[in-house]
């Protein structure tokens, strides 16, 4: 009897260690699934909405043919041999707009903060751009109101919770900004719905859908984009914590772009 229990204790130890190892890739620690506060680094997901767009309408195809991206995913908008001849508006410091600022990256930062009056703010290091997501119960503008507001490069965003998923709806987007770096277009009728989920203490996922029946014959659903929360020391540069400093200067200034950034990307 005694010999068996002596054997069991190390076995138990081994089993517990194995269990702990299996859990290790996921972050330890509690988290509030309704709180996305912190600095996030993009760590997964396609650089477009998804690798394959739905079939386009004739209007969408006609619009796309005007675009000369630096990288191509469709014969409708081919990349030239010389990328400096691309007419990607972002290369001459026009805003990337939404959703491009969110999807067009393999590795960039934004910080989420909350205001007392019910806003979730995304502070994008690229372009030094604040994005407001209203959580105060309002509806997205529509009809005559939306028409009078007109398009904005970053649109008008409103969110609400469904369980532990934050649903964000954005309308009123400027159609001069491309959907992505591949030259896919979006119209002023475009509506983007994002679904945010905090998977664990360090991981946030975003899945989005573009509804734009003027240019696409079906909703365009994205893959899952993954963001990793950054510890303080990873976003402290030369003693300065935070995304906005000389080390994190990502405003696109034409005096920099002209002649310096001709190859874009």
């Amino acid at each position, binding site marked *: 009897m005694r010999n068996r229990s002596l054997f069991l204790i190390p076995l138990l130890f081994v089993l517990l260690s194995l269990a702990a190892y299996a859990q290790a890739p996921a972050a330890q620690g509690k988290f509030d699934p309704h709180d996305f506060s912190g600095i996030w680094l993009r760590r997964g997901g396609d650089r477009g909405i998804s690798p394959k767009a739905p079939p386009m309408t004739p209007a969408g195809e006609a619009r796309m043919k005007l675009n000369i991206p630096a990288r191509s995913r469709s014969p409708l908008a081919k990349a030239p041999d010389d990328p400096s001849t691309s007419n990607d508006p972002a290369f001459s410091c026009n805003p990337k707009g939404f959703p491009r600022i969110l999807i067009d990256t393999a590795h960039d930062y934004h910080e989420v903060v909350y205001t007392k009056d019910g806003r979730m703010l995304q502070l994008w290091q690229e372009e030094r751009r604040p994005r407001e997501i209203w959580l105060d119960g309002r509806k997205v503008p529509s009809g005559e109101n939306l*028409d*009078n*507001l*007109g398009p904005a490069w970053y649109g008008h965003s409103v969110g609400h919770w469904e369980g532990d998923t934050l649903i964000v709806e954005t309308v009123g987007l400027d159609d001069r900004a491309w959907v992505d770096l591949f030259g896919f277009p979006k119209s002023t009728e475009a509506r983007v719905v994002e679904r945010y989920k905090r998977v664990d203490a360090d991981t946030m996922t975003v899945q989005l859908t573009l509804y734009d029946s003027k240019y696409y014959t079906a909703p365009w659903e994205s893959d899952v984009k993954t963001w990793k929360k950054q510890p303080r020391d990873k976003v402290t540069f030369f003693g300065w914590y935070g995304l906005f400093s000389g080390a994190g200067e990502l405003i696109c200034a034409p005096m920099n772009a002209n002649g310096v950034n001709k190859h874009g990307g």
Partner: protein
Amino acid sequence: MKKLLTSFLLIAALVVVAAPLFAHHGRGATYDMKKEVMLKGTITEVAWRNPHVAIYMDVKGPDGKVTNWAFENSNVSTLARQGYNRNTLKIGEEITAVVNPSAQGAPRGIVVKVILPDGKEIMSRGSGANPVD
């Protein structure tokens, strides 16, 4: 005495017309602020964007020739706070625009005021509500 009275009133009138010039910066030399031109025509484009909202309109001259004029206003933020938006003026609308014209004779101007068909005046620069600076 009559001459003196007339001179005083003329000076006063000139000062009033020129007053908005003193309140603004940087555009005075591009436009002839002492001149006003009345443009009657049809709106062809509303460029509701910065740096200055621009309205384009087809104006028929006395010779029957149509010239496309453009006049600038304040920026989108300022106009929005005054209650205007991109649909305040619509393509195809007939308006009368009073403008200070380009000093170089180009069909360009800076708004003084816009008069709608019903006689209502909007976007007037004289009251300080549409500053172009």
